[in-house]
C-alpha cells in the first residue's frame, strides 16, 4: 500500500546569523560560526533544510567560580583561575563558541570595573580563535557599564553581548550597533514577551541578523516543559512566517542544570538517584538534547563530557 509521506513545507525561515569575524572581516577570529537559517523543525530534513547544526557554547567565568559543583571544578582543573586558559581549554574540549560570564566582583570583593572587563575580554579573545559571547553579571547598572566597555574593546569581532533585557536593552543594543556586535535578548518564558523584546531591539535599528533570542529555560525535572513548549511555539510561529520570531534561539541548560541537586551534589540525596557523576552529565545532556529538539540553535553548557555527548547526538542527527 503506497503511503504518501506527509511533508510539511513552511513559508517562513529562521534568519541565518554569523558570529565572530576573521581578519578578512575586520576581526581576529580563526573562523566564524553560523547559526540559524533553517526552514524546518529540528532535523526534519524531509520538510526543509537546516544549513547549520545547533551549536554548543561552553560557559567560562572571569574568576574561579564560587558556587560551582565540585564535579565541574574537577573536570576543568586549574584553568578556572584564568579565563584565558579556560577559554583555550574550552576550545580544546570541542566548543563551537565560548561564552564569557562576567562576575559582579573580583577577589577581595571589590567590584569588577570596566577596565577589568576590557582586560579579561582581550585576554580571552587572544587565547581562543572561536567567536565569543560575553554576558554581564545580570545587574542592570553593572551590565550597562561593563558591556559597553567590552563592546568597545572587542570592536569588529562580532561578539554576542548579553544579557539584553527589557530594562536595559537600549544601552546594550547601542553598544552593539556602535561596535558591530550581536545581542542576546532574554525574556521570561513567554512567546509574546520574546517577540516584543525582538521588536524593541529591532526598532533601535539593529538588523535582525544580529539579534539572538533567549527565551530562558529550565532544567529537566524543574520546569523544562515550559521552556520546551515556549520554544516549540516560537519556532512554529517563525516557520509560519511571523518575522519577529524568526531568530535563532539560545538557551543555557548548563546554568539551569548545575544549580539543581541532581547535578550539583553527591551526598544527602536518595539512593534511587544513582551514580552522581553519571547522573550529573546525564541531566545536563538530556536537558540540552531535549531543548535542541524543541528548536535551540545554541546551547550553553558547562561540563566537557556533556559537550561531547551533545555534539555526538547533533552529528548523528545532521548525518541522517
Amino acid at each position: 500500500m503506497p503511503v504518501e509521506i506527509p511533508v510539511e513545507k513552511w513559508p517562513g525561515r529562521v534568519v541565518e546569523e554569523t558570529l565572530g569575524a576573521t581578519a578578512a572581516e575586520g576581526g581576529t577570529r580563526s573562523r566564524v560560526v553560523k547559526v540559524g537559517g533553517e526552514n524546518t523543525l529540528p532535523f526534519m530534513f524531509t520538510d526543509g533544510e537546516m544549513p547549520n547544526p545547533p551549536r554548543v557554547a561552553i560557559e567560562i567565568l572571569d574568576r574561579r567560580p564560587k558556587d560551582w559543583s565540585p564535579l565541574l571544578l574537577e573536570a576543568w582543573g586549574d584553568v578556572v583561575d584564568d579565563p584565558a586558559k579556560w577559554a583555550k581549554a574550552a576550545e580544546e574540549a570541542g566548543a563551537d563558541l565560548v561564552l564569557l560570564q562576567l562576575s559582579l566582583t573580583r577577589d577581595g570583593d571589590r567590584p569588577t570595573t570596566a577596565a577589568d572587563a576590557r582586560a579579561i575580554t582581550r585576554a580571552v579573545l587572544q587565547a581562543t580563535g572561536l567567536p565569543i559571547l560575553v554576558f554581564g553579571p545580570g545587574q542592570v547598572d553593572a551590565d550597562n557599564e561593563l558591556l559597553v566597555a567590552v563592546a568597545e574593546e572587542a570592536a569588529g569581532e562580532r561578539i554576542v553581548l548579553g544579557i539584553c533585557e527589557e530594562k536595559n536593552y537600549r544601552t546594550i543594543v547601542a553598544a552593539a550597533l556602535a561596535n558591530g556586535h550581536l545581542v542576546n535578548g532574554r525574556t521570561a518564558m513567554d512567546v509574546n514577551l520574546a517577540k516584543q523584546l525582538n521588536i524593541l531591539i529591532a526598532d533601535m535599528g539593529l538588523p535582525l541578523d544580529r539579534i539572538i533570542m533567549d527565551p530562558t529555560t529550565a532544567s529537566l525535572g524543574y520546569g523544562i516543559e515550559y521552556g520546551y513548549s515556549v520554544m516549540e511555539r516560537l519556532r512554529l510561529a517563525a516557520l509560519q512566517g511571523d518575522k519577529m520570531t524568526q531568530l535563532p534561539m539560545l538557551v543555557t541548560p548548563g546554568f539551569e542544570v548545575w544549580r539543581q541537586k541532581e547535578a550539583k551534589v553527591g551526598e544527602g540525596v536518595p539512593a534511587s538517584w544513582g551514580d552522581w557523576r553519571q547522573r550529573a552529565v546525564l541531566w545536563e545532556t538530556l536537558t540540552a538534547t531535549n531543548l535542541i529538539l524543541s528548536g535551540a540553535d545554541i546551547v550553553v553548557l558547562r561540563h566537557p563530557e556533556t559537550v561531547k555527548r551533545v555534539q555526538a547526538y547533533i552529528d548523528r542527527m545532521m548525518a541522517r
Partner: protein
Amino acid sequence: MALTGLQIYKLLPQTNCKECGFPTCLAFAMKLAAKQAELSACPYVSEEAKAQLDAAAAPPIRLVAVEGPGHRVEVGNETVIFRHEKTFYHPPGLFLRVKDSWPLEQVKGAAKAAMDYSVTYVGMNLHLDGVAVEAASGNPEAFAAAVKAVREVTDRPLILMASDPAVLKAGLSAADGVRPLLYAATAENWQAVAEVAKAANAPVAVRADSLDALADLTEKVKGIGVPDIVLDPGVRDPAGTLTTLTHLRRLALKKNFRPLGYPIITFPGEGASDTIEEAQLAAEHIAKYAGFIVLDRFAPEMVYALLAWRVNIYTNPQEPIKVQPGVYEINNPTADSPVMITTNFSITYFSVANEVDGSGMPGWLLVADAEGMSVLTAWAAGKFDAEKIAKTVKTTGIEEKINHRKLIIPGAVAVLMGEVEEELPGWQILVGPREAVDLPGYLKLWKSF
C-alpha cells in the same frame, strides 16, 4: 477524525420519524456530533452508515493496553502533534529487555532490579512499566522458562519477543495472568503470529522497514481479527526515528490514515553504544511520539532522568501540577522555628521543601494558593501579592503554632516586603534567598535576624 453534524446527517435515514426522541434527523445528527446522543437511538440507521459512523468516531491513534495483575499500561489515543496544542495523554510504557539466552538467575536478577526500582519525584512515585523478554535462543522451553522467571519477580505487563509463533505461544503459556504485547509480526510470519495474538486476545506489534509495507501488514493483521496493533517501522538511528515517528504522527492525526493509526514501539538501545547515548535516544522517543520504549540498559540515574522527563512532557500544559495550600511541617518544627512562605506550584513547593528538609533544620512552610504558578509568575499575574501572603498567614492558623512573628518571603518578591508589613501588623518580614538552593545557608543564620 470526528464528523460534523451535516456529514452525519447525510448518513442518517432523513425521514424525521422522531423515534430517536429528537424532532428531526438533523437535530439528532447535531446531538451526535456533540456526543450528546447515541447512534443506537435510531432504529433505522443502515449497517453501512453505522460502520462509517463508528469508524469516524474511533480515535485516530488506537488506544492499546497491556496488563499484568499489578499494573496496566495504556498508550495511543493521542490527539495533537505538539503538547502545547492540548496535551499528551498516555505516557509511553518504559520496559527493560532481558533475553532467554542469559542464565535464568541473570534474567531474574535484571528483571527484579528494574522492577523493584522506584523514585520519588514531585511527590509522585515513579517506576518502569514492565519487562520485555526476548527469545534470543529460539527455543520454546528456554523462552517459557525465562518468561516464568520474570513472572516470579513482577506482576507488571510483559512484551514477548519472538519471530517463531510456536515460541511465542510457549511464552504466552508461561505468562499466566498477563496480557502481553507480542512482538513481532513481519512479512514472513504475520499470519501465524496474528493467529496467536487473536487466540490470546493480545496486542501484536508489526515490523516492516518501509511505511508502505507496514501499512500492508497492519491491514492484514487487522483482517485476521486482531484490532490492537503496535507499529515498529524498523528505524533505529536517532535521526531516522525522529523523522519516521513524526511522519507517523502526522499521518494519523492530519491525514486520518487508519492503517498507521497505532502506537509505536522503539528500541533506543539498538541505536546506542552506552547508557548516556541510549538515554538520549529514549528521551527523544518520549518527546517525539513513542508508545512503548524498550530499554537495553538499566541504571538508576538513567531511569530517574527518563521517568522525570516523561512526567514533564506528559504534564498538561494547561494545568500546572499543584500542591494543596496550607501549612507544611518540615523536620518537626516547634514554636520558635522559622516560618517561610511560597506558592503551590509543585516544582516550587518541592524545591523549597526539599532544601529545608535536606538542611535538617525544622521549619514551617506556608503554601499560598497561587493557582499553581511559580513565585515570579504568580507575582506577575497578581496571584502572589501582599494580600494573598497575609491571607495565607491568617487562614492557616500559623499564629497559634509559633511564639514569634517573623515571616520569610521569597527573595524573588523582595519588592513586596513593605506591603506585606502593612498587611500584617506586628510581623517582621524577612527577605529570603532568591533560589531555594540557598535556603539551608540562610536558615543557619535565621536566629540572628
